[in-house]
Protein backbone atom coordinates (compact mmCIF):
# COMPACT_ATOMS: atom_id res chain seq x y z
CA UNK A 1 0.00 0.00 0.00
CA UNK A 2 1.12 3.53 -0.60
CA UNK A 3 0.67 4.37 3.05
CA UNK A 4 3.50 2.04 4.00
CA UNK A 5 5.57 2.69 0.90
CA UNK A 6 5.71 6.41 1.55
CA UNK A 7 5.07 6.76 5.27
CA UNK A 8 6.32 10.34 5.40
CA UNK A 9 4.07 11.62 2.69
CA UNK A 10 0.89 10.64 4.52
CA UNK A 11 2.27 11.23 7.99
CA UNK A 12 2.63 14.96 7.47
CA UNK A 13 -0.95 15.24 6.23
CA UNK A 14 -2.27 13.16 9.10
CA UNK A 15 -0.64 15.63 11.44
CA UNK A 16 -2.33 18.73 10.04
CA UNK A 17 -5.72 17.19 9.24
CA UNK A 18 -7.44 17.52 12.65
CA UNK A 19 -6.41 21.17 12.94
CA UNK A 20 -7.52 21.97 9.40
CA UNK A 21 -10.79 20.13 9.86
CA UNK A 22 -11.58 22.20 12.96
CA UNK A 23 -10.58 25.46 11.31
CA UNK A 24 -12.79 24.71 8.32
CA UNK A 25 -15.65 23.65 10.57
CA UNK A 26 -15.54 26.83 12.67
CA UNK A 27 -13.97 29.27 10.21
CA UNK A 28 -14.83 28.58 6.62
CA UNK A 29 -18.11 26.68 6.84
CA UNK A 30 -19.97 29.27 8.93
CA UNK A 31 -18.52 32.01 6.75
CA UNK A 32 -19.93 30.41 3.61
CA UNK A 33 -23.16 29.71 5.47
CA UNK A 34 -23.53 33.34 6.54
CA UNK A 35 -22.79 34.53 3.03
CA UNK A 36 -25.73 32.48 1.77
CA UNK A 37 -27.96 33.70 4.61
CA UNK A 38 -27.00 37.30 3.91
CA UNK A 39 -28.69 37.06 0.54
CA UNK A 40 -31.97 35.98 2.15
CA UNK A 41 -34.55 37.73 4.27
CA UNK A 42 -34.40 35.80 7.53
CA UNK A 43 -35.35 37.44 10.80
CA UNK A 44 -36.34 35.67 13.98
CA UNK A 45 -40.02 36.15 13.09
CA UNK A 46 -39.73 35.54 9.38
CA UNK A 47 -37.90 32.53 7.98
CA UNK A 48 -38.15 33.62 4.37
CA UNK A 49 -35.36 31.69 2.70
CA UNK A 50 -36.07 33.04 -0.78
CA UNK A 51 -33.19 34.98 -2.22
CA UNK A 52 -33.45 38.70 -1.76
CA UNK A 53 -30.52 39.63 -3.90
CA UNK A 54 -28.39 42.45 -2.61
CA UNK A 55 -31.03 44.05 -0.39
CA UNK A 56 -29.03 43.47 2.80
CA UNK A 57 -25.85 44.76 1.26
CA UNK A 58 -27.37 47.96 -0.12
CA UNK A 59 -28.92 48.42 3.32
CA UNK A 60 -25.38 48.45 4.78
CA UNK A 61 -24.55 51.67 2.97
CA UNK A 62 -27.68 53.43 4.18
CA UNK A 63 -27.26 52.32 7.79
CA UNK A 64 -25.94 55.35 9.66
CA UNK A 65 -25.82 53.42 12.93
CA UNK A 66 -23.41 50.95 11.32
CA UNK A 67 -21.08 53.69 10.09
CA UNK A 68 -21.37 55.38 13.45
CA UNK A 69 -20.24 52.20 15.16
CA UNK A 70 -17.26 51.92 12.81
CA UNK A 71 -16.40 55.52 13.62
CA UNK A 72 -16.62 54.86 17.38
CA UNK A 73 -14.34 51.86 16.95
CA UNK A 74 -11.82 53.93 14.99
CA UNK A 75 -11.99 56.68 17.61
CA UNK A 76 -11.16 54.28 20.44
CA UNK A 77 -8.28 52.76 18.45
CA UNK A 78 -6.93 56.21 17.55
CA UNK A 79 -6.77 57.28 21.20
CA UNK A 80 -5.97 54.08 23.07
CA UNK A 81 -3.36 52.55 20.77
CA UNK A 82 -0.86 55.47 20.71
CA UNK A 83 -1.23 56.03 24.45
CA UNK A 84 -0.63 52.35 25.22
CA UNK A 85 2.38 52.33 22.92
CA UNK A 86 4.07 55.45 24.30
CA UNK A 87 3.27 54.68 27.92
CA UNK A 88 4.36 51.08 27.50
CA UNK A 89 7.62 52.19 25.93
CA UNK A 90 8.28 54.72 28.69
CA UNK A 91 7.63 52.04 31.31
CA UNK A 92 9.92 49.63 29.48
CA UNK A 93 12.72 52.23 29.63
CA UNK A 94 12.05 52.81 33.31
CA UNK A 95 12.60 49.14 34.14
CA UNK A 96 15.29 48.45 31.55
CA UNK A 97 18.25 48.96 33.88
CA UNK A 98 18.60 46.53 36.75
CA UNK A 99 17.24 47.71 40.08
CA UNK A 100 16.53 45.76 43.25
CA UNK A 101 12.94 44.51 43.25
CA UNK A 102 12.51 44.96 39.53
CA UNK A 103 10.97 41.51 39.09
CA UNK A 104 8.36 42.25 41.73
CA UNK A 105 7.42 45.56 40.11
CA UNK A 106 7.06 43.92 36.71
CA UNK A 107 4.96 41.07 38.12
CA UNK A 108 2.60 43.50 39.82
CA UNK A 109 2.32 45.72 36.76
CA UNK A 110 1.24 42.91 34.44
CA UNK A 111 -1.68 41.84 36.67
CA UNK A 112 -4.31 43.93 34.79
CA UNK A 113 -3.50 42.15 31.53
CA UNK A 114 -4.29 38.70 32.96
CA UNK A 115 -7.72 39.67 34.26
CA UNK A 116 -10.74 38.85 32.08
CA UNK A 117 -11.73 41.97 30.12
CA UNK A 118 -15.31 41.64 31.33
CA UNK A 119 -14.03 41.72 34.92
CA UNK A 120 -11.82 44.69 34.09
CA UNK A 121 -14.91 46.49 32.80
CA UNK A 122 -16.92 45.49 35.86
CA UNK A 123 -14.12 46.66 38.17
CA UNK A 124 -13.97 50.07 36.53
CA UNK A 125 -17.72 50.31 36.67
CA UNK A 126 -17.41 49.99 40.44
CA UNK A 127 -14.52 52.47 40.52
CA UNK A 128 -16.38 55.00 38.38
CA UNK A 129 -19.59 54.92 40.42
CA UNK A 130 -20.62 58.51 40.95
CA UNK A 131 -21.35 58.16 44.67
CA UNK A 132 -19.71 55.05 46.11
CA UNK A 133 -16.75 54.78 43.75
CA UNK A 134 -13.27 55.95 44.80
CA UNK A 135 -12.46 57.88 41.61
CA UNK A 136 -14.87 60.74 42.17
CA UNK A 137 -13.77 60.76 45.79
CA UNK A 138 -10.10 61.18 44.82
CA UNK A 139 -10.98 63.82 42.23
CA UNK A 140 -12.91 65.59 44.97
CA UNK A 141 -9.75 65.85 47.10
CA UNK A 142 -7.98 67.66 44.31
CA UNK A 143 -10.95 69.80 43.32
CA UNK A 144 -11.68 70.76 46.92
CA UNK A 145 -15.39 70.03 46.48
CA UNK A 146 -17.43 66.86 45.81
CA UNK A 147 -17.26 65.66 42.19
CA UNK A 148 -20.46 63.90 41.15
CA UNK A 149 -19.30 62.89 37.65
CA UNK A 150 -21.50 60.29 35.94
CA UNK A 151 -18.70 58.51 34.10
CA UNK A 152 -20.72 55.84 32.33
CA UNK A 153 -23.70 58.03 31.46
CA UNK A 154 -22.45 61.53 30.70
CA UNK A 155 -21.80 61.83 26.93
CA UNK A 156 -18.63 63.83 27.58
CA UNK A 157 -17.19 61.26 29.98
CA UNK A 158 -18.07 57.86 28.52
CA UNK A 159 -15.18 57.79 26.07
CA UNK A 160 -12.58 58.81 28.66
CA UNK A 161 -14.02 56.11 30.94
CA UNK A 162 -13.74 53.39 28.29
CA UNK A 163 -10.29 54.51 27.18
CA UNK A 164 -8.97 54.67 30.78
CA UNK A 165 -10.10 51.11 31.40
CA UNK A 166 -8.68 49.93 28.09
CA UNK A 167 -5.33 51.65 28.70
CA UNK A 168 -5.16 50.35 32.24
CA UNK A 169 -5.67 46.79 31.09
CA UNK A 170 -3.44 46.69 28.00
CA UNK A 171 -0.54 49.10 28.56
CA UNK A 172 1.17 46.39 30.65
CA UNK A 173 1.00 44.08 27.62
CA UNK A 174 2.84 46.66 25.48
CA UNK A 175 5.22 47.26 28.36
CA UNK A 176 6.13 43.59 28.71
CA UNK A 177 6.72 43.05 24.99
CA UNK A 178 8.72 46.26 24.59
CA UNK A 179 10.76 45.51 27.71
CA UNK A 180 11.73 42.17 26.17
CA UNK A 181 12.53 43.86 22.86
CA UNK A 182 14.63 46.60 24.47
CA UNK A 183 16.51 44.04 26.57
CA UNK A 184 17.74 42.44 23.35
CA UNK A 185 19.23 45.70 22.08
CA UNK A 186 22.92 46.35 22.74
CA UNK A 187 23.18 47.88 26.22
CA UNK A 188 25.46 50.75 25.24
CA UNK A 189 22.85 52.03 22.78
CA UNK A 190 19.99 52.13 25.25
CA UNK A 191 21.89 53.84 28.10
CA UNK A 192 19.69 56.84 28.68
CA UNK A 193 21.38 57.90 31.90
CA UNK A 194 24.79 59.02 30.85
CA UNK A 195 23.98 60.76 27.61
CA UNK A 196 22.14 64.03 27.11
CA UNK A 197 18.63 64.34 25.68
CA UNK A 198 19.49 65.19 22.10
CA UNK A 199 21.87 62.29 21.76
CA UNK A 200 19.34 60.01 23.42
CA UNK A 201 16.67 60.88 20.86
CA UNK A 202 19.08 60.47 17.97
CA UNK A 203 20.19 57.04 19.13
CA UNK A 204 16.58 56.07 19.79
CA UNK A 205 15.40 57.21 16.38
CA UNK A 206 18.18 55.73 14.29
CA UNK A 207 19.43 52.73 16.25
CA UNK A 208 17.03 51.53 18.92
CA UNK A 209 13.77 52.00 17.03
CA UNK A 210 14.89 50.07 13.93
CA UNK A 211 16.14 47.30 16.21
CA UNK A 212 12.88 46.92 18.14
CA UNK A 213 10.58 47.72 15.22
CA UNK A 214 9.80 44.12 14.15
CA UNK A 215 8.56 43.34 17.66
CA UNK A 216 6.87 46.71 18.08
CA UNK A 217 5.05 46.38 14.76
CA UNK A 218 3.60 43.03 15.79
CA UNK A 219 2.58 44.41 19.17
CA UNK A 220 0.81 47.30 17.41
CA UNK A 221 -0.88 44.88 15.01
CA UNK A 222 -2.07 42.58 17.81
CA UNK A 223 -3.40 45.46 19.89
CA UNK A 224 -4.95 47.14 16.84
CA UNK A 225 -6.84 43.94 16.00
CA UNK A 226 -7.95 43.49 19.59
CA UNK A 227 -9.14 47.09 19.76
CA UNK A 228 -11.05 46.66 16.51
CA UNK A 229 -13.04 43.85 18.11
CA UNK A 230 -13.46 45.60 21.50
CA UNK A 231 -16.62 44.31 23.16
CA UNK A 232 -16.30 43.15 26.75
CA UNK A 233 -15.08 46.34 28.40
CA UNK A 234 -17.76 48.44 26.72
CA UNK A 235 -20.43 45.85 27.44
CA UNK A 236 -19.55 46.00 31.13
CA UNK A 237 -19.23 49.79 31.32
CA UNK A 238 -21.93 51.23 29.07
CA UNK A 239 -23.51 48.46 26.94
CA UNK A 240 -22.97 50.84 24.01
CA UNK A 241 -24.84 53.70 25.66
CA UNK A 242 -25.86 56.35 26.32
CA UNK A 243 -28.15 55.69 23.35
CA UNK A 244 -25.80 54.32 20.75
CA UNK A 245 -22.96 56.67 21.58
CA UNK A 246 -20.32 54.07 22.45
CA UNK A 247 -21.59 51.34 20.18
CA UNK A 248 -18.59 49.73 18.46
CA UNK A 249 -18.82 47.45 15.45
CA UNK A 250 -18.79 44.33 17.66
CA UNK A 251 -21.50 45.69 19.93
CA UNK A 252 -23.64 46.75 16.97
CA UNK A 253 -23.31 43.36 15.25
CA UNK A 254 -24.25 41.63 18.48
CA UNK A 255 -27.28 43.86 19.01
CA UNK A 256 -28.52 43.35 15.45
CA UNK A 257 -28.11 39.58 15.68
CA UNK A 258 -29.19 38.81 19.21
CA UNK A 259 -31.37 41.72 20.28
CA UNK A 260 -33.11 42.75 17.05
CA UNK A 261 -32.87 39.25 15.53
CA UNK A 262 -32.12 40.57 12.06
CA UNK A 263 -30.50 37.30 11.02
CA UNK A 264 -29.85 37.96 7.34
CA UNK A 265 -28.79 41.55 7.88
CA UNK A 266 -26.38 40.56 10.67
CA UNK A 267 -24.83 37.98 8.36
CA UNK A 268 -24.24 40.80 5.86
CA UNK A 269 -22.62 42.95 8.58
CA UNK A 270 -20.42 40.06 9.70
CA UNK A 271 -19.35 39.57 6.12
CA UNK A 272 -18.54 43.28 5.73
CA UNK A 273 -16.49 43.20 8.93
CA UNK A 274 -14.44 40.24 7.73
CA UNK A 275 -13.76 41.83 4.34
CA UNK A 276 -12.90 45.18 5.92
CA UNK A 277 -10.55 43.62 8.42
CA UNK A 278 -8.82 41.48 5.81
CA UNK A 279 -8.15 44.59 3.71
CA UNK A 280 -6.87 46.65 6.65
CA UNK A 281 -4.67 43.86 8.00
CA UNK A 282 -3.15 43.10 4.61
CA UNK A 283 -2.42 46.80 4.15
CA UNK A 284 -0.95 47.09 7.66
CA UNK A 285 1.27 44.05 7.21
CA UNK A 286 2.66 45.41 3.93
CA UNK A 287 3.00 48.92 5.31
CA UNK A 288 4.84 47.81 8.43
CA UNK A 289 7.20 45.66 6.43
CA UNK A 290 6.10 42.50 8.21
CA UNK A 291 5.60 40.50 5.02
CA UNK A 292 8.58 38.34 4.31
Amino acid sequence: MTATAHPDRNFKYWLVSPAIFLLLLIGLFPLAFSLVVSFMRITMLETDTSFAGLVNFTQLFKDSRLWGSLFHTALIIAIALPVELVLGLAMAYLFLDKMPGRQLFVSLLVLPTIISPIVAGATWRLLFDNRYGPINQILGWFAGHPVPALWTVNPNLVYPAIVFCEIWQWTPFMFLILLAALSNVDRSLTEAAEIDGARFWRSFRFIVLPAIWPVMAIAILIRGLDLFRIFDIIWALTEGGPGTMTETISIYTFVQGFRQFETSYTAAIAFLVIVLLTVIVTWAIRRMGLAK
Partner: protein
Amino acid sequence: MSGLPFHRRHDVRLALRYVVAVALVLVFVFPIYWLFTMSFKTPDEIFAFPPVWYPRAIQFNNYRVLFKDGDAATVGNSLILATVSTFFAMIFGTVAAYSLARFKTGGENLAVWIISQRMMPPVAIVFPVFLFYVWLGWVDTYVGLIILYTAFSLPYVIWMMRGYIEDIPLELEESALVDGCTRWAVLWKVVLPMARSGLFATAVFTFVFAWNDFLFALVLTRTEVTTYTVQVTHYFGGQSNFWAKIAAMSVLGTIPVFVAVATMQRYLVRGISMGAVKG
Protein backbone atom coordinates in the same frame (compact mmCIF):
# COMPACT_ATOMS: atom_id res chain seq x y z
CA MET B 1 22.36 68.32 38.46
CA SER B 2 25.46 68.39 36.30
CA GLY B 3 27.45 69.76 39.25
CA LEU B 4 26.94 66.59 41.25
CA PRO B 5 29.56 63.87 41.21
CA PHE B 6 28.76 60.84 39.14
CA HIS B 7 27.74 58.46 41.89
CA ARG B 8 25.46 61.04 43.50
CA ARG B 9 23.71 61.59 40.19
CA HIS B 10 23.32 57.85 39.91
CA ASP B 11 21.71 57.66 43.37
CA VAL B 12 19.29 60.47 42.60
CA ARG B 13 18.33 58.77 39.36
CA LEU B 14 17.72 55.44 41.07
CA ALA B 15 15.60 57.11 43.74
CA LEU B 16 13.54 58.86 41.06
CA ARG B 17 13.04 55.56 39.26
CA TYR B 18 11.72 54.03 42.47
CA VAL B 19 9.32 56.90 43.03
CA VAL B 20 7.90 56.54 39.52
CA ALA B 21 7.81 52.73 39.81
CA VAL B 22 5.88 52.84 43.07
CA ALA B 23 3.47 55.42 41.66
CA LEU B 24 2.84 53.23 38.60
CA VAL B 25 2.24 50.15 40.72
CA LEU B 26 -0.22 52.11 42.87
CA VAL B 27 -2.18 53.20 39.80
CA PHE B 28 -2.17 49.82 38.06
CA VAL B 29 -2.82 47.67 41.12
CA PHE B 30 -5.37 49.90 42.86
CA PRO B 31 -8.37 48.71 40.76
CA ILE B 32 -7.50 45.10 41.59
CA TYR B 33 -7.09 46.02 45.25
CA TRP B 34 -10.50 47.71 45.18
CA LEU B 35 -12.16 44.66 43.58
CA PHE B 36 -10.59 42.20 46.02
CA THR B 37 -11.30 44.24 49.14
CA MET B 38 -14.87 44.93 48.02
CA SER B 39 -15.51 41.19 47.98
CA PHE B 40 -14.82 41.17 51.74
CA LYS B 41 -16.86 44.25 52.59
CA THR B 42 -20.24 44.26 54.25
CA PRO B 43 -23.14 45.97 52.42
CA ASP B 44 -22.76 48.93 54.80
CA GLU B 45 -19.12 49.32 53.83
CA ILE B 46 -19.82 48.95 50.10
CA PHE B 47 -22.49 51.65 50.21
CA ALA B 48 -20.68 54.03 52.51
CA PHE B 49 -20.27 57.64 51.55
CA PRO B 50 -17.52 58.71 51.47
CA PRO B 51 -16.12 55.31 50.33
CA VAL B 52 -14.41 53.01 52.82
CA TRP B 53 -10.86 52.25 51.66
CA TYR B 54 -10.48 48.88 53.35
CA PRO B 55 -12.89 46.42 55.00
CA ARG B 56 -12.90 46.58 58.80
CA ALA B 57 -12.91 42.80 59.05
CA ILE B 58 -12.43 39.98 56.57
CA GLN B 59 -15.79 38.26 56.20
CA PHE B 60 -16.70 35.67 53.59
CA ASN B 61 -20.43 36.24 53.45
CA ASN B 62 -20.32 37.46 49.84
CA TYR B 63 -18.65 34.20 48.83
CA ARG B 64 -20.90 32.06 50.97
CA VAL B 65 -23.92 33.39 49.08
CA LEU B 66 -22.36 32.45 45.72
CA PHE B 67 -21.70 28.89 46.84
CA LYS B 68 -25.11 28.54 48.48
CA ASP B 69 -26.96 29.71 45.34
CA GLY B 70 -24.81 27.51 43.10
CA ASP B 71 -23.47 30.53 41.18
CA ALA B 72 -19.92 29.49 42.01
CA ALA B 73 -20.39 26.40 39.82
CA THR B 74 -19.91 28.67 36.80
CA VAL B 75 -16.23 28.88 37.74
CA GLY B 76 -16.22 25.09 37.44
CA ASN B 77 -17.75 25.38 33.97
CA SER B 78 -15.06 27.86 32.95
CA LEU B 79 -12.44 25.49 34.33
CA ILE B 80 -13.77 22.50 32.36
CA LEU B 81 -14.15 24.45 29.12
CA ALA B 82 -10.75 26.16 29.32
CA THR B 83 -8.85 23.04 30.41
CA VAL B 84 -10.33 20.61 27.89
CA SER B 85 -10.13 23.05 24.97
CA THR B 86 -6.52 23.91 25.86
CA PHE B 87 -5.70 20.19 25.96
CA PHE B 88 -7.11 19.56 22.47
CA ALA B 89 -5.76 22.78 20.99
CA MET B 90 -2.27 21.89 22.25
CA ILE B 91 -2.41 18.36 20.80
CA PHE B 92 -3.87 19.22 17.40
CA GLY B 93 -1.95 22.48 17.19
CA THR B 94 1.43 21.01 18.12
CA VAL B 95 1.28 18.10 15.68
CA ALA B 96 0.13 20.47 12.93
CA ALA B 97 2.93 22.88 13.83
CA TYR B 98 5.42 20.01 13.65
CA SER B 99 4.18 19.14 10.19
CA LEU B 100 4.44 22.77 9.05
CA ALA B 101 7.86 23.26 10.61
CA ARG B 102 9.52 20.04 9.47
CA PHE B 103 7.81 19.06 6.22
CA LYS B 104 6.70 22.53 5.06
CA THR B 105 3.24 21.02 4.58
CA GLY B 106 1.11 23.22 2.37
CA GLY B 107 3.97 25.67 1.98
CA GLU B 108 3.80 29.27 3.15
CA ASN B 109 0.20 29.55 1.89
CA LEU B 110 -1.20 27.16 4.48
CA ALA B 111 0.71 28.90 7.27
CA VAL B 112 -0.61 32.31 6.21
CA TRP B 113 -4.15 30.98 5.88
CA ILE B 114 -3.97 29.56 9.40
CA ILE B 115 -2.74 32.79 10.96
CA SER B 116 -5.32 34.80 9.02
CA GLN B 117 -7.98 32.76 10.85
CA ARG B 118 -6.69 34.32 14.05
CA MET B 119 -7.52 37.79 12.74
CA MET B 120 -11.21 37.08 12.35
CA PRO B 121 -13.20 39.18 14.80
CA PRO B 122 -15.07 36.87 17.21
CA VAL B 123 -18.34 38.68 16.63
CA ALA B 124 -18.19 37.83 12.91
CA ILE B 125 -17.52 34.18 13.73
CA VAL B 126 -19.98 33.73 16.54
CA PHE B 127 -23.05 34.71 14.57
CA PRO B 128 -22.79 32.06 11.84
CA VAL B 129 -21.54 29.57 14.42
CA PHE B 130 -24.63 30.26 16.49
CA LEU B 131 -26.93 29.49 13.54
CA PHE B 132 -24.89 26.37 12.84
CA TYR B 133 -25.06 25.23 16.49
CA VAL B 134 -28.82 25.80 16.71
CA TRP B 135 -29.13 23.42 13.78
CA LEU B 136 -26.82 20.86 15.41
CA GLY B 137 -28.35 21.26 18.86
CA TRP B 138 -25.01 22.30 20.31
CA VAL B 139 -26.09 25.54 21.97
CA ASP B 140 -25.50 25.48 25.73
CA THR B 141 -23.42 22.28 25.62
CA TYR B 142 -19.83 21.64 26.66
CA VAL B 143 -19.10 20.05 23.27
CA GLY B 144 -20.12 23.14 21.34
CA LEU B 145 -18.01 25.58 23.32
CA ILE B 146 -15.02 23.24 23.60
CA ILE B 147 -14.91 22.79 19.82
CA LEU B 148 -15.24 26.54 19.30
CA TYR B 149 -12.51 27.41 21.82
CA THR B 150 -10.23 24.70 20.46
CA ALA B 151 -10.65 25.91 16.88
CA PHE B 152 -10.26 29.55 17.88
CA SER B 153 -7.01 28.86 19.75
CA LEU B 154 -5.51 26.63 17.06
CA PRO B 155 -3.97 29.37 14.87
CA TYR B 156 -2.18 30.81 17.89
CA VAL B 157 -0.90 27.41 19.06
CA ILE B 158 0.24 26.42 15.57
CA TRP B 159 1.97 29.74 15.00
CA MET B 160 3.80 29.70 18.34
CA MET B 161 4.73 26.02 18.31
CA ARG B 162 6.00 26.22 14.73
CA GLY B 163 8.51 28.81 15.90
CA TYR B 164 9.61 26.74 18.89
CA ILE B 165 9.95 23.54 16.85
CA GLU B 166 12.00 25.29 14.15
CA ASP B 167 14.51 26.18 16.86
CA ILE B 168 15.15 22.52 17.72
CA PRO B 169 18.23 21.15 15.94
CA LEU B 170 17.23 18.76 13.19
CA GLU B 171 20.18 16.44 13.92
CA LEU B 172 18.54 15.16 17.12
CA GLU B 173 15.53 13.92 15.21
CA GLU B 174 17.63 12.44 12.43
CA SER B 175 19.76 10.41 14.82
CA ALA B 176 16.60 9.15 16.56
CA LEU B 177 15.24 8.05 13.18
CA VAL B 178 18.51 6.29 12.40
CA ASP B 179 18.22 4.50 15.73
CA GLY B 180 14.98 3.02 14.49
CA CYS B 181 12.42 5.28 16.18
CA THR B 182 9.11 5.70 14.40
CA ARG B 183 7.96 9.18 13.35
CA TRP B 184 5.52 9.26 16.26
CA ALA B 185 8.21 8.23 18.71
CA VAL B 186 10.45 11.02 17.44
CA LEU B 187 7.66 13.51 18.00
CA TRP B 188 6.92 12.20 21.50
CA LYS B 189 10.40 11.50 22.78
CA VAL B 190 12.55 14.08 21.06
CA VAL B 191 10.52 17.06 19.86
CA LEU B 192 8.04 17.53 22.71
CA PRO B 193 10.63 17.37 25.54
CA MET B 194 12.81 19.85 23.65
CA ALA B 195 9.91 22.25 23.13
CA ARG B 196 8.80 21.97 26.76
CA SER B 197 9.05 25.59 27.83
CA GLY B 198 7.34 26.68 24.64
CA LEU B 199 4.56 24.17 25.25
CA PHE B 200 3.96 25.46 28.77
CA ALA B 201 3.94 29.11 27.75
CA THR B 202 1.60 28.48 24.82
CA ALA B 203 -0.71 26.33 26.95
CA VAL B 204 -1.02 29.04 29.61
CA PHE B 205 -1.92 31.70 27.06
CA THR B 206 -4.39 29.36 25.35
CA PHE B 207 -5.98 28.62 28.71
CA VAL B 208 -6.22 32.33 29.52
CA PHE B 209 -7.86 33.13 26.16
CA ALA B 210 -10.56 30.53 26.75
CA TRP B 211 -10.93 31.50 30.39
CA ASN B 212 -11.36 35.19 29.60
CA ASP B 213 -13.80 34.68 26.75
CA PHE B 214 -17.09 36.45 27.20
CA LEU B 215 -18.70 36.92 23.78
CA PHE B 216 -18.77 33.26 22.68
CA ALA B 217 -20.11 32.17 26.04
CA LEU B 218 -22.68 34.99 26.08
CA VAL B 219 -24.09 33.84 22.75
CA LEU B 220 -23.73 30.08 23.07
CA THR B 221 -24.70 29.37 26.67
CA ARG B 222 -28.04 29.58 28.42
CA THR B 223 -28.12 27.86 31.80
CA GLU B 224 -26.17 24.60 31.66
CA VAL B 225 -22.61 25.65 30.83
CA THR B 226 -22.70 29.35 31.78
CA THR B 227 -19.15 30.55 32.33
CA TYR B 228 -18.11 32.79 35.15
CA THR B 229 -17.63 35.79 32.82
CA VAL B 230 -21.28 35.58 31.78
CA GLN B 231 -22.35 35.03 35.37
CA VAL B 232 -20.63 38.27 36.45
CA THR B 233 -22.78 40.23 34.00
CA HIS B 234 -25.95 38.68 35.40
CA TYR B 235 -25.43 40.87 38.45
CA PHE B 236 -25.36 44.06 36.41
CA GLY B 237 -28.50 46.09 36.22
CA GLY B 238 -30.48 48.78 37.87
CA GLN B 239 -30.21 47.50 41.42
CA SER B 240 -26.81 48.23 42.79
CA ASN B 241 -27.12 45.79 45.66
CA PHE B 242 -25.43 43.09 43.56
CA TRP B 243 -22.05 44.78 43.91
CA ALA B 244 -20.88 42.31 46.52
CA LYS B 245 -21.69 39.46 44.13
CA ILE B 246 -19.94 41.15 41.20
CA ALA B 247 -16.81 41.56 43.30
CA ALA B 248 -16.82 38.08 44.84
CA MET B 249 -17.60 36.35 41.53
CA SER B 250 -14.86 38.32 39.78
CA VAL B 251 -12.33 37.36 42.43
CA LEU B 252 -13.31 33.69 42.20
CA GLY B 253 -12.76 33.86 38.46
CA THR B 254 -9.51 35.78 38.71
CA ILE B 255 -7.72 33.59 41.24
CA PRO B 256 -7.27 30.52 38.98
CA VAL B 257 -5.64 32.68 36.29
CA PHE B 258 -3.36 34.39 38.79
CA VAL B 259 -2.32 30.96 40.09
CA ALA B 260 -1.71 29.58 36.58
CA VAL B 261 0.35 32.58 35.58
CA ALA B 262 2.30 32.71 38.83
CA THR B 263 3.32 29.04 38.70
CA MET B 264 4.30 29.26 35.03
CA GLN B 265 5.88 32.69 35.24
CA ARG B 266 9.40 31.69 34.28
CA TYR B 267 8.15 30.22 31.00
CA LEU B 268 5.85 33.10 30.20
CA VAL B 269 8.25 35.99 29.88
CA ARG B 270 10.29 33.97 27.43
CA GLY B 271 7.10 32.90 25.70
CA ILE B 272 5.91 36.46 25.21
CA SER B 273 9.20 37.82 23.99
CA MET B 274 10.01 34.89 21.73
CA GLY B 275 6.51 34.78 20.34
CA ALA B 276 6.68 38.46 19.54
CA VAL B 277 10.09 38.17 17.93
CA LYS B 278 9.02 35.23 15.84
CA GLY B 279 5.67 36.75 14.97
